């Protein structure tokens, strides 16, 4: 019965079955086409998405090169700091996680929220640093609650470390995150945003060798962001280490005298024959460690807002009147141009009238020759030379000594000093040069303004046989330097005078050390003109004169030369006293004796020493 019923419509069943078959085949063709489109047509697109899913490329910051002093003592090192970071992609309830994190690290939750909010444009899978340089307690707190703090982790970051804190801070400079402007111009695109580079000093000048090459680590993470394995790792390459010419012990001695005396200022100490920088200091200083992890706003504001400008490197950027130290240039110009010989005498009656105006001296020196004039720092003698030597000649000889020119030191942002000339005045003021102006120039006042580093080059030339050295910390800049063009008789005469400054009754007697042939020249740099001083209360500290001292030793085989500029110290002899400690440390170290401590604190200038504090310009 069934059979017959079935056979009557078997043909329609077959038709339906054929339809069913065709339908299934068509759908399968569509499926195969869809898979072809995804797997072959758009394969690259989806493969990239899959890799974005499970691959994270982490930046491995390369440690910067270590910097040593000439004896191999570590000047700049690296340490590992711990950062507490967050990957938002892995966080379920962000505000709960931030609150818990704030709780365990005792950081204000508002600060953490602010970090997250200010980085809202950063992709979710990138890590954000919430707490830089976290304490061990904070890290322990995070580890203890790790299960609840999904997406929060602790990173080890190599961080610049300056073990001597403020020492040589200006020389080292500091680090900072690369700015968008620097991103394109620095290091041929090797930088990426967030990179830390040198922003000042040595860290900037030698940024390329010091920086090293960051590495990368490609890791596989699963869907909840846990790292499963490392796929690929390119280890970071540490930056090149540098050994500087700097002598850390001498640098410390330099800074000690400034700290103990409380003066701002600068000092540069060179090897006068090679130009190696043994010490270079600017006061007040700062702690470059504050910048190593990105300077915080408060510190930055304090440093920038400070009237004493602690970020300025006075050794390279401070322009001071050289005062009487300029008499070295004057003497050299007059002797080399054969205008005078060393026995040329001038009678000092406490000053003199030149071009109808009286110019004072700080004492009545009587009849003095060049040696005595240098020894006593007699202004009258050099006023007289100022009437005999043309300002352009002075300018020319100043250049021979390196004044008013770039020293070529391997540090950035050096400022070039000024020694006036006719052309300069015409250009700046549109006026001709008046001979009376040369009188002030002759004692290093007026428009003369030079940097401490150039004064150190000047005194080096005096003792090294007349060669203008190029100071350097690591590598000599290739620069044609004016080699020996100062006659040896001229140099002998100046050296004789400068020896008397320290070792006879000169103004630099405070730098005398028995048994060592030290030469030097004091200078007092006028901060404000005498007329100006009368208008205001002259006792204001900020209007007090600067004390300068250039020095070199020993005379027959010079191994140290330098300059000390003590701001508002009023007298050069204060600077000479400061230089004495530097010299003591230098010789003690050279002879293998223990490094002496600063015995007596350096006291402010007193009138009782027989040198009146405010009488005339220059000393």
């Amino acid at each position, binding site marked *: 019965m*069934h*059979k017959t*019923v*079935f056979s*009557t*419509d078997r043909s329609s*069943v*077959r038709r*339906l*079955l054929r339809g*069913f*078959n065709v339908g*299934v*085949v068509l*759908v*399968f063709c569509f*499926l*195969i086409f*869809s*898979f*072809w489109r*995804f*797997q*072959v047509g*758009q*394969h690259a*697109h*989806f*493969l990239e*998405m*899959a*890799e974005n*899913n*499970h691959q994270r490329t982490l930046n491995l910051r390369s440690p910067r090169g270590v910097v040593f002093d000439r004896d191999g003592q570590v000047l700049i090192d690296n340490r590992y700091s711990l950062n507490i970071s967050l990957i938002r992609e892995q966080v379920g309830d962000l505000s709960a996680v931030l609150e818990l994190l704030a709780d365990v690290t005792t950081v204000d939750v508002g600060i953490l929220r602010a970090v997250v909010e200010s980085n809202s444009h950063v992709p979710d899978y990138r890590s954000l640093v919430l707490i830089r340089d976290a304490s061990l307690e904070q890290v322990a707190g995070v580890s203890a609650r790790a299960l609840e703090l999904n997406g929060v982790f602790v990173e080890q970051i190599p961080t610049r470390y300056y073990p001597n804190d403020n020492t040589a801070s200006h020389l080292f400079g500091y680090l900072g995150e690369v700015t968008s402007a620097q991103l394109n111009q620095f290091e041929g695109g090797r930088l990426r945003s967030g990179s830390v580079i040198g922003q000042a000093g040595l860290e900037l000048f030698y940024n390329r060798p010091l920086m090293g090459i960051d590495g990368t680590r490609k890791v*596989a*993470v*699963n*869907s*909840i962001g846990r790292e*499963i*394995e490392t796929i690929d790792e390119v280890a970071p390459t540490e930056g090149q280490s540098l050994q500087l010419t700097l002598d850390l012990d001498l640098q410390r001695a330099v800074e000690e005298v400034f700290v103990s005396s409380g003066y701002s200022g600068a000092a540069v100490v060179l090897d006068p024959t090679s130009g190696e920088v043994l010490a270079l200091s600017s006061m007040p200083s700062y702690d470059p460690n504050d910048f190593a992890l990105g300077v915080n706003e408060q510190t930055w504001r304090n440093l920038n807002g400070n009237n004493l400008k602690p970020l300025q490197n006075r050794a390279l950027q401070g322009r001071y009147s050289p005062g009487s130290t300029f008499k070295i240039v004057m003497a050299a110009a007059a002797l080399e141009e054969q205008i005078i010989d060393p026995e040329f005498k001038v009678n000092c009656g406490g000053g003199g009238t030149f071009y109808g105006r009286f110019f004072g001296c700080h004492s009545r020196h009587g009849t003095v020759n060049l040696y005595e004039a240098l020894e006593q720092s007699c202004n009258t003698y050099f006023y007289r030379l100022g009437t005999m030597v043309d300002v352009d000649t002075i300018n020319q000889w100043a250049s021979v000594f390196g004044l008013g020119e770039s020293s070529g030191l391997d540090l950035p942002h050096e400022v070039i000093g000024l020694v006036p000339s006719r052309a300069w005045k015409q250009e700046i003021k549109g006026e001709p040069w008046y001979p009376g102006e040369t009188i002030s120039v002759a004692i290093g006042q007026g428009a003369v303004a030079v940097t401490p580093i150039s004064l150190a080059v000047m005194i080096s030339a005096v003792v090294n046989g007349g060669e203008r050295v190029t100071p350097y910390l690591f590598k000599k800049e290739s620069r044609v330097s004016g080699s020996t063009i100062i006659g040896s008789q001229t140099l002998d005469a100046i050296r004789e005078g400068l020896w008397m400054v320290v070792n006879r009754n000169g103004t630099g007697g405070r730098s005398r050390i028995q048994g060592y042939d030290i030469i030097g020249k004091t200078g007092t740099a006028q901060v404000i003109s005498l007329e100006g001083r009368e208008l205001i209360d002259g006792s204001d500290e900020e209007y007090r004169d600067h004390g300068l001292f250039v020095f070199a030793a020993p005379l027959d085989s010079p191994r140290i030369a330098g300059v000390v500029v003590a701001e508002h110290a009023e007298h050069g002899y204060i600077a000479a006293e400061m230089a004495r400690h530097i010299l003591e440390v230098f010789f003690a170290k050279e002879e293998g004796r223990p490094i002496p401590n600063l015995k007596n604190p350096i006291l402010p200038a007193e009138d009782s020493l027989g040198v009146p504090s405010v009488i005339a310009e220059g000393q």
Partner: protein
Amino acid sequence: MREVFNRRLYGYIDGTLLAAILVLSSIGLFMIYSATYDPTLENAGPQVIRQFGALVLGSLGLVVLVMFDYRTLLNHSVLLYIGLVGLLIYTLFFGVERGGAQRWIDFGFINLQVSEFARVVLALTLAAFYSDQRRENRSFLDWVLGALIVSVPFVLIVREPDLGTAITLLPVAIIIMVFSGLKLKLLMSLCLVGILLTPLAWAYALEDYQKVRIASFIDPEQDPYGAGYQQIQARITVGSGGLEGKGFLEGTQNQYNFLPVAHNDFIFSVLAEEQGFLGVLVVLGLYLFVIMRSLEAARLAKDRQGMLLVVGIVGGFVFQVIYNVTMSAGLAPVKGLTLPLMSYGGSSIIATLMGFGLILNVRMRRFTN
């Protein structure tokens, strides 16, 4: 009982179909191994052993269903249907709850998902129901009764809730009705009514999570970490596999768990990622072969009820395969629908193999009276 031991009968068993089923199940087993593989432990999950056990049990079920004449089963389909409804009701009250759904009955050594067996029982019931009347004289009442037969287990399964499995009952019923003479015109008008009722269903019948899934299908990017996430990840998984695939255990989407329940709903995505388009071609080819070979059993069937039984079972199978594969490529909303023969799931594999047992049964007995 005489024919159970008729050895000549077993010579008619479709060995080719059986082999294709076996190959697909084995590929499935390998894919489950990969999907549950833990790269940190370097070990696959316990699901592989369980699936193997289910395959053995399913094969036993298949053998049992081959042994008895399908007509005997059809004659007792009412009892089977009542048993099914009873167990589904039992599940609703005493079932094991997992992931917010109450779908399993605890039999001690195995948790059985009764709804997976509903397709086979429904195919038997409807095949029996529509076999006793002339095809030309169907009254509208026949279709209403057929619809009632489907709707009872359908509603019970939806209540678990398990919309995905419930929906698989519809193709079984529709195919059998069409082959029983339901005019396509009438079917179309019913579909039209269904579409018109969709807004009502949206408002009253669908659970919130179901609405989200449908909404996220229309625009997966809208909710990348919610329901749309699975769909995007499915596409990435498939697309990143490329022509030749990433290799066994090498699929990053699979190994790093970017695909949820990869061993279950997304087993085909795992295949696509690790074995590539070529693997997809092979497996889709095997499925197509199994389907067409099974439909041949319908063509060869001795009687109407055998034919209806086969097309009913194949209809459900085809729907599941097509839906799951489409979903695996992120082209259909994510439903808890397994890929028969390959997905992990004991009840699914046992029910599917039993279904094929019936198909083999019908083909084998095409010459017997």
